[in-house]
């Protein structure tokens, strides 16, 4: 029966060909799969597959290149902005994007992040913030919330000892090289649509040479947070988004927050 209704005239949604058929290794409930899909759908809709080079990070999305059906390079931990810089400089007509997590972008790669943004490299930077180190087993991230328990902050993040959760998107928004900076989520369909719009604008603007376009996506990590996916989404709304407030931070070169 189920076979019979899978016919072209009944088709209302189809996975983009810019995602491979490889089964993703992400935990059920993780935002990465949705963010991958949103990004690849936009690249597909814009007809840019043959012009795109993406940079995968080290972290949970280290294997992003297995899922995104585009040419990709795997960068050393934190170095994606440096890798993207060189590719864009050497091939200015390409769409170049980085895809990084919070440890990669906001801890080990902070220097590369800031200098890439400061040079205003004409790239799209996608920053996935789940407030924890997922791949290595739930250790504290630069974006871990105050009091939040992780494997390396088992009694909760003590800001007096290890500093405050880092709002790096607000930081880089201050740099002249950054054309746009905004924060999104993917825990509701409406939020995904909003993210896709931001990704599309970021691609258009970076391709037009406006500067660095920076898109943060707050995502839940139910495994690392030790919750069910539903609980994790709720916890994210109640806690993470209180500190990392979604919305535009910089639009068309102007700070709006």
């Amino acid at each position: 029966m189920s076979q019979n209704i899978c016919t072209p005239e009944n088709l209302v949604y189809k996975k983009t060909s810019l995602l491979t058929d490889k089964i993703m290794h992400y935990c059920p409930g993780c935002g990465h799969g949705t963010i991958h899909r949103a990004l690849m759908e936009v690249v597909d809709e814009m007809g840019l597959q043959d012009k795109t080079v993406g940079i995968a990070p080290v972290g949970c999305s280290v294997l992003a290149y297995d899922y995104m059906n585009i040419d990709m390079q795997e960068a050393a931990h934190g170095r994606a902005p440096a890798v993207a810089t060189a590719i864009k400089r050497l091939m200015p007509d390409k769409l170049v994007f980085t895809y990084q997590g919070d440890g990669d972008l906001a801890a080990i790669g902070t220097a590369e992040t800031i200098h890439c943004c400061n040079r205003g490299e004409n790239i799209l930077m996608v920053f996935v913030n789940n407030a924890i180190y997922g791949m290595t087993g739930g250790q504290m991230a630069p974006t871990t919330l105050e009091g939040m328990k992780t494997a390396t902050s088992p009694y909760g993040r003590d800001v007096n000892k290890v500093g405050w959760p880092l709002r790096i998107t607000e930081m880089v928004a201050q740099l002249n090289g950054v054309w746009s900076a905004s924060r999104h989520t993917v825990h509701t369909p409406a939020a995904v649509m909003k993210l896709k719009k931001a990704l599309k604008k970021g691609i258009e603007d970076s391709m037009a040479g406006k500067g660095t376009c920076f898109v943060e996506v707050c995502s839940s990590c139910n495994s690392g947070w030790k919750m069910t996916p539903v609980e994790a989404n709720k916890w994210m709304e109640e806690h993470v988004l209180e500190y990392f407030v979604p919305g535009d931070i910089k639009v068309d070169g102007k700070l709006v927050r």
Partner: protein
Amino acid sequence: MEDLRLMKGNEAFAEAAIRAGCDGYFGYPITPQSEVMEYLMKERPENRTGMVVLQAESEVSSINMVYAGAGCGKRVMTSTSSPGYSLMQEGISYIAAAELPCIVLNVVRGGPGLGTIQPSQSDYFQATKGGGHGDYRLIVLAPSSVQEMSDFVSMGFDLAFKYRNPVLILADGVIGQTMEKVVLQPQRPRLTEEEIRKNTPWATVGKSIDREHNIVTSLDLQAASQEKHVLHLQEKYRQIEAAEARCEMIKCEDAEYVLVAYGSSARICQKAVDLLRAKGVKVGLLRPITLWPFPSKEVKELATRVKGFMSVEMSLGQMVEDVKLAVEGKVKVEFFGRCGGIVPAPEEVVHAVETKLL
């Protein structure tokens, strides 16, 4: 007409890069090689050939920029000096693992640590035995004149692309800072995207419909396939060893003793050979041009007909190990070296030969 100039080694290297059709240089200033980027910035190669020159925020960043450019099939390079070269090791290991072609110039200064800024050769082990983590090798070229600082650039790119392997040019402060006559090579065109797609089909230049997507990576989560990859690298290294070892032999035909020295030490030893021959000592010089692969075959052959060798280095006994491995105990192998940025005088080498070797 030949293009003859008087140039510093560092400047000749930079000019040769433009002429070799290099697509991109990414670097970070450090003495004694900052003239490379200074020269490139001044020359505005973007107007001459379209070459990209970028001052990165660190050596860590610059080597990862090189990784990126190499992954796009471009001719890319960086230059640095010892502490900066240490910072680059992670990136170089990735480049070797991902089998990407590029050139790295290390104008060695005295170490360990922050050390001195004076000439040294104490990065020999790091250059020839790996340097970063994992089983890998770089092709290591050792220029001993400003002319070779120029010539080894296009030769380096050819080797790097032939074997899909990074090439390290190991120089020192003497070669980098000294001005000598140099005949510059004619301009080579940069590669077009069409040529890159054809010559380096693995390059990430955008997925076309007629091929699968290209991935540049050094990650393999499966031990079995990682072992297979490392064995494949080893097979390539054996080919390079068989085909690419190079050296120059000076006055070795009738020599009873042979000095082994590379880079500026080889220049000093040439003078020492002349001084010793004036005293009636039949001594020659074997100058490795490739440090890896080491010219073991030539050393081994000489070992059948000379009385002894002396490795002369601006380090404390590094290359001498490779000489000993090649000689296999057949004759004696002595060592003389200075370190920390001290350049030995030819007379010191003469004295060392007279007291240790004869």
